[in-house]
């Protein structure tokens, strides 16, 4: 066992504060990112609840909710080997008028309604799909009913001035700001063309499945290269793109960065202080080694190794704690997305912070002089 690790284990109470600080930083970063990812998952819900492999939209679509109308005639461009029959997908913001007259933003999502349609959200039951075939009917998420001023099935409101009726309530289609209103392609065309006449012969997206989903990225690249005025994404790409866009656009990423930086700073200061104090507590032993001619760099190495182990132990303890706190948050109704990339990133950042703290603590070694043992 290394001298550094042996010291850490023997004097664990002394190093506990440093380990705790690293643990705190790592958990803070991982949970913050997890909560934000959870929050911004809501922006890609239409993509995540579809079974399409390819999403085709207008040029430079940044996020699924920001698609612009494209001519339905583009459908012929998808006539390629390996790409299955495309389907129409409408998605656009609308103005929702509540039964009490108030207004709210909403997002109209019009899809094919048979079980075989790639765009049909998987949370819709066969009954919902059947009910939605009736013109000007909608399905919304339970959590959005209050925003829409609706109390339940049968209530009516207006989208872009057209009266619609709520025929079903689902869970899993929660929105960030503008409630998703699921409807048929016909309903969508009707309510959207009222404010944007293009929707008479345009759609927002063309969706398609691939014979071999593994080939979707290659097919998306081919189509995008062939038709620069179209955006072509795989479902995974579009989902990530949508989340990232809102994460960056809302500056939530900046807020996260600041909070994470503060967490790291607190962790670094406490860890540096712990290592500094631990080194000074062994100052006489180190001074004896220096008197014997042991190079000072060996002691620097020991302190750096200690900072490494403090970081590693802290990160290792953080891992189960992140999962525990994540599931607690989920039970409380939050959504925490714990991804290995985030865990790895949080671990790398806190390890780096711990090593930085070690570098700061090296100051203590510089002050150690063997002559002090003779005074």
């Amino acid at each position: 066992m290394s001298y550094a690790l042996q010291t850490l284990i023997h004097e664990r109470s002394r190093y506990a504060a440093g380990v705790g600080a690293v643990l705190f930083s790592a958990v803070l970063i991982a949970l913050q990112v997890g909560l934000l990812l959870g929050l911004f998952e809501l922006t890609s819900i239409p993509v995540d609840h579809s079974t399409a492999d390819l999403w085709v939209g207008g040029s430079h679509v940044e996020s699924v909710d920001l698609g612009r109308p494209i001519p339905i005639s583009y459908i012929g461009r998808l006539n390629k080997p390996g790409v299955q029959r495309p389907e129409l997908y409408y998605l656009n913001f609308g103005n929702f008028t509540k039964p009490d007259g108030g207004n709210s933003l909403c997002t109209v999502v019009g899809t094919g309604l048979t079980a075989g349609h790639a765009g049909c959200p998987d949370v819709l039951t066969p009954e919902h799909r059947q009910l939605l075939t009736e013109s000007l009917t909608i399905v919304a998420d339970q959590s959005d009913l209050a925003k829409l001023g609706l109390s339940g099935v049968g209530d009516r409101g207006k989208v872009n001035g057209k009266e619609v009726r709520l025929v079903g309530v689902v869970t899993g289609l929660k929105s960030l700001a503008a409630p998703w209103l699921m409807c048929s392609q016909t309903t969508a065309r009707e309510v959207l063309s009222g404010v944007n006449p293009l929707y008479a012969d345009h759609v927002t997206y063309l969706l398609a499945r691939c014979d071999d989903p593994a080939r979707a990225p290659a097919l998306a690249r081919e189509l995008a290269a062939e038709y620069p005025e179209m955006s072509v994404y795989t479902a995974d790409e579009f989902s990530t793109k949508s989340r990232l866009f809102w994460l960056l656009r809302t500056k939530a990423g900046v807020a996260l960065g600041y909070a994470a930086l503060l967490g790291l700073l607190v962790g670094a200061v406490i860890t540096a202080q712990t290592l500094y104090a631990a080194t000074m507590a062994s100052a006489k032993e180190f001074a004896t080694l220096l008197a014997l001619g042991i190079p000072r760099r060996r002691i620097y190495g020991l302190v750096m190794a200690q900072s490494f182990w403090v970081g590693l132990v802290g990160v290792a303890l953080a891992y189960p704690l992140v999962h525990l706190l994540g599931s607690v948050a989920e039970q409380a109704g939050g959504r925490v997305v714990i991804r290995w990339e985030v865990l790895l990133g949080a671990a790398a950042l806190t390890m780096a912070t711990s090593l930085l703290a070690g570098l700061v603590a090296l100051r203590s070694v510089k002050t150690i002089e063997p002559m002090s043992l003779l005074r």
Partner: protein
Amino acid sequence: MPAAPSNPSLRSVRLGRTFGDGATRRVALGSVTFDLHPGRLALLMGPSGSGKSTLLAILSGLLNPDAGQVLAWEAGAYVDVWALPQAEREAFRLRQVGFIFQGYNLFPAFTAAQQLEIVLRWGQNASAPDARRRSHAMLEGLVLGSQTHKKPAQLSGGEKQRVAIGRALVKGSKFIFADEPTSALDWENGKLVLELLRREAHDHGATIFVVSHDSRMLPYTDIAYHLEDGRLSEMSRSSLGEHP
């Protein structure tokens, strides 16, 4: 006592050192000249504040003198210790100098054997098995063969000081400096420490320089000096008494 060999191993030439400035200026060492020989245990006595530790620090390469030279015999020639660049002086200490302090200064987390091993591994880049073998052999010689696996908290004061002696000797140091090595020990353990140092000098030819104000040490030494007001004088043979 072994006869003084012709070549002194450590020569102190007109060493001077003062502390402070102006009204607070204090002369710790006047012009101190004396020789130490290999194979002998030398004792330096004197009242508190007489400059004993200052002299030990200058001789051992820890504190620079204001004037004079320290010449150490190494590989057939004298090395002017304070004319060496700092890195070379540290390398000289690593090759030749061992220290024993009043406090044992042992790492609480390490076993007795590891306190020695770290010196070999870090100082001489010894392999782990080599460092372990040499450390165990050294501790056997210090009658600590059964204590090698114990940490300082499990050792008595005398045992801890013997581990500290082992740490000073294990790298094969030819010059051993000890500052009040027995002051924290009862006399029985103190005598044992002195016998071990004496044996190191007589059997292995080390140059041992001990600073103390305990006159009970005198019979165990080969030569003794008295330092007072910055002036050094050799004590008479008769004042040493017979080795028990």
